[in-house]
């Protein structure tokens, strides 16, 4: 087991490293650099040269990659082209806000999704299942900006229950966001619930049809005891990984939702940075998101290894 964990950890680090190379190389391959972006396209001659010298852009790519990567490991993503503020401080609050939003969505969404998945799986093809499964397809497929728009139209404009957009500054304490991010997290939660629910449902159906559940029935185990002791521990194991994958979706989906609700998070910062061609900020954000994604998946895999007796005892058996 230990070997599997170490192996998985190694692969996780390898992936993050490849991500950093891709991000750096990707930005490198684009025409122009931080200075041309900062100084507008027609900047030439001395000014450009000075700027490049200031930011160290004349060094070879490999050196700059190493500088950037070693900084990133320490949480230092350099300074923005105007040279005034460090990117880390610029981005820090925004990232915190986004994580807050995602965490809220996860905290509500995951238990609810698992609950719905289990009941739709157990009552397969009954009305509960048909209702929620159909709902899930809608929730899953309608673009976030569409559902957000519709929700704003209904709850903020027609019913006037909640504010339509967030006006709180980025560095405000978390609690200040609360009324404003209700709609935003509802939008995020819906899609996530749909994905996790569908997966849990299919896994529950498969496990309930398994030989060991049939055997438990024929052993006289009461129904709900079968569900909780025999079926669910097996059905929910694969859900761990799906939850992790959903986090990835959450981090991407957050971009659009933040723009719709004017929420001062990582997504909106990203859009602003791209509009301003502020590539170092884009690099930093991409790196943060990717590392989070890899990290969450790593944790999910490790949890699966720890919780699944089959994987846990693999190495012992080999001996």
């Amino acid at each position, binding site marked *: 087991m230990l070997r599997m964990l170490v192996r998985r950890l190694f692969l996780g680090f390898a992936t993050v490293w490849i991500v950093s190379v891709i991000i750096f190389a990707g930005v490198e391959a684009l025409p122009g650099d931080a200075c041309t972006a900062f100084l507008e396209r027609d900047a030439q001659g001395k000014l450009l040269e000075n700027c490049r010298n200031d930011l160290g852009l004349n060094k070879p790519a490999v050196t700059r990659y190493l500088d950037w990567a070693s900084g990133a490991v320490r949480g230092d993503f350099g300074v923005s082209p105007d040279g005034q503020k460090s990117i880390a401080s610029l981005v820090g609050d925004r990232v915190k806000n986004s994580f807050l939003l995602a965490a809220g969505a996860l905290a509500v969404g995951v238990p609810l999704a698992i609950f719905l998945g289990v009941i739709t799986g157990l009552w397969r093809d009954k009305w509960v299942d048909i209702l929620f499964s159909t709902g899930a397809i809608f929730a899953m497929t309608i673009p976030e900006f569409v559902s957000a728009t519709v929700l704003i139209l209904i709850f903020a404009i027609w019913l006037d229950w909640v504010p339509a957009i967030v006006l709180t500054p980025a560095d405000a304490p978390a609690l200040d966001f609360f009324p404003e991010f209700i709609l935003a997290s509802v939008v995020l939660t819906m899609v996530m619930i749909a994905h996790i629910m569908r997966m849990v449902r299919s896994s529950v159906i498969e496990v309930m049809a*398994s030989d060991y559940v049939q055997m438990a*029935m*024929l*052993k*006289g185990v*009461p129904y709900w005891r079968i569900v909780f*002791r025999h079926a669910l521990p097996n059905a929910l*194991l694969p859900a761990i990984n799906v939850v992790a994958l959903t986090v990835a979706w959450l981090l991407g989906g957050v971009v659009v939702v933040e723009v719709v609700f004017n929420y001062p998070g990582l997504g909106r910062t990203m859009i602003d940075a791209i509009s301003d061609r502020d590539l170092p900020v884009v690099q930093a954000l991409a790196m943060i998101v990717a590392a989070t994604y890899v990290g969450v998946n790593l944790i999910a895999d490790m949890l699966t290894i720890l919780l699944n*007796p089959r994987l846990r005892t693999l190495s012992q058996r080999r001996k």
Partner: protein
Amino acid sequence: MARPIIDIRDLSIGFTGRTGKTLPVLRNVDLTVRRGESIGIVGESGSGKSTLALASMGFLKQGLRVIGGSVCFNGEDMFARKRSELEAIRGGQLGLIPQNSGQSLTPTMRIGAQMAEALELHCTLGKDAYHARIIDLLGQVRLPDPEAIFIRYPHELSGGQQQRVAIAMALAGEPDALLLDEPTTGLDVTTQAHILELLRDLARDRNMAMIYVSHDLGVIARVCERVMVMYAGEAVLQGPTAEVLKDPAHPYARGLLASIPRLCDTHLPVALDGRPPPPGGGGAGCAFAARCALVVDQCQAERPALMGAGNGSQARCFRHADAHTLAAGGTGADPLHHRSDGQPALSLDDVSISYASHGFLDRLFGGAAKDIPTVDDISITVASGETLGLVGESGSGKSTILKAVAGLLPPAGGQIAVGEGNALPTMVEQRRPQQLRRIQMIFQNPDDSLNPRHTVAEILAQPLRLYDGLSGQALTERSVEILETVRLGAHYMDRLPGQLSGGEKQRVAIARAFAAEPEIVLCDEITSALDVSVQAAMLELLNDFKKMKDTTYVFVSHDLAVVRALSDRVAVLYQGRLCEIGPTEKVYGNQSHPYTSVLLNAVLEPDPDVAPTLMAEDVVELSPPSTGCPFQRRCTRKQGVTCENETPPWRETGGGHAIRCHIPLEDLGGD
């Protein structure tokens, strides 16, 4: 007589077909079982035997429903009971031992916890007494080291151990009756023999009623007093075991018996032509009429009832009195035997194969153990036109050797040659087309070896295009010709494998192999996924091809009787090492390797008078010992340290028969 524990009356079970019609899978079945009785239910796949067994617990698989009749347990109808009552009976008074215990034990629960659950539900013991009781039960099913098993997860046990746990779990409820649904299918012969002995003893000691469902008449013969034979959802014959197995009064039962290969019979088993009707497809008359040799007009028009057929048995047959004229074994064709003096067709010279391949990361983290080859030191020469049988339990390396010959696995050492010493390149990709066509392989499971998206025509076209460059009309004609040699008509050409029965699929797979006009055909357990009556047909087919084309076979099987029926010479493998090789009658004779003796003695014959002898423990070994005799750890005749340290010598008994053992020939039994 005592009141029956299980009383099934006129039970019919069915499902709703696509057209909305009700299709029966079980028709008018009666069955009564009393305390202390053990009843066997035999039948081929689809005969409804498992449905019947589960119905006696008041359980139906999804989609099935009771059409008529009743199932009473201790006098009360199971299907009329409340769920809580059913829960109290199931696992309590009525225990089930399932077919595949590996999949029937909950993977996330430790054995101890699963056993404790059974006790909690069906036992009045206090919680603190559970542990002692579980250890006691695990001991009763003869599991070594119950304390260790207690904390294990199901996947950490071997198949035999899992089956024993399932038995212990059923015993936890102190059952009055036990249902056994193919409890030994899929286990090695030696393990099977041990489990059956255990069940016999338990049934005797506890005076339980047993319903034993199996496709294997040998198993039934060993454990049951009465037998019920099922065919297409009906009970066609029931009676005392001795009567049913020795002189059955129903044509189907006789056909079934005749299709079973036996150790004592040198003839090929006789195939039962045709296939059973699908549910609801039997027509008005007898379900077996279409395949019956004794069929008369009445059989087509009217469905026979169960009628007394003498000697305590009942048969669902109008012509039961004449059924005794049909053969029930011993009349099959003589297999074509070649002596092994022909030209060599295939020779393996000191072949060893190692499965362990270590990935980049494994190497990075070390820990790659110094590996002992999975298969080692194999030298066999197969003469042209000869059939070599390779036998051994699961994990003995039989299939691995075939794959190496076919070039699908690279041997770690040694040489494989065809004809007179033409060494073959190790991997199939390096072999020339002419080398390739000489060796063809038939796989175990046709569901897996035929591409589900190809029609029969496309499947047969592959070798013909590749080796003969046929196309167009010539290709079609040749394909149809080949199809007819395996007794399938041209109308099969457009079918997909999914539209064929198991036997038909395997025929197509055989046809595909012979389409290449090979000299050597490798058969990898080709009958083990099939019903016995279909298995017999495959053996006949192989024999026919041998007659026509003088083909050389390497025939791999775990079933010693099947190997005996077909082979000229037999090689016995244990843990990837040869134990014994020689002419069939010598290997199956008295003088043999201790392991061969263990295997032969564990074989169950469909004859209640023949009892197996249990010699070695049914331990599963994961890897062979690094030195000495591979069988040393299980051998009951181990000769001390010699067997541990020294590789045993080949001892020749003459006539090409050799045994690899430290025990002198005189002590290995003699003729």
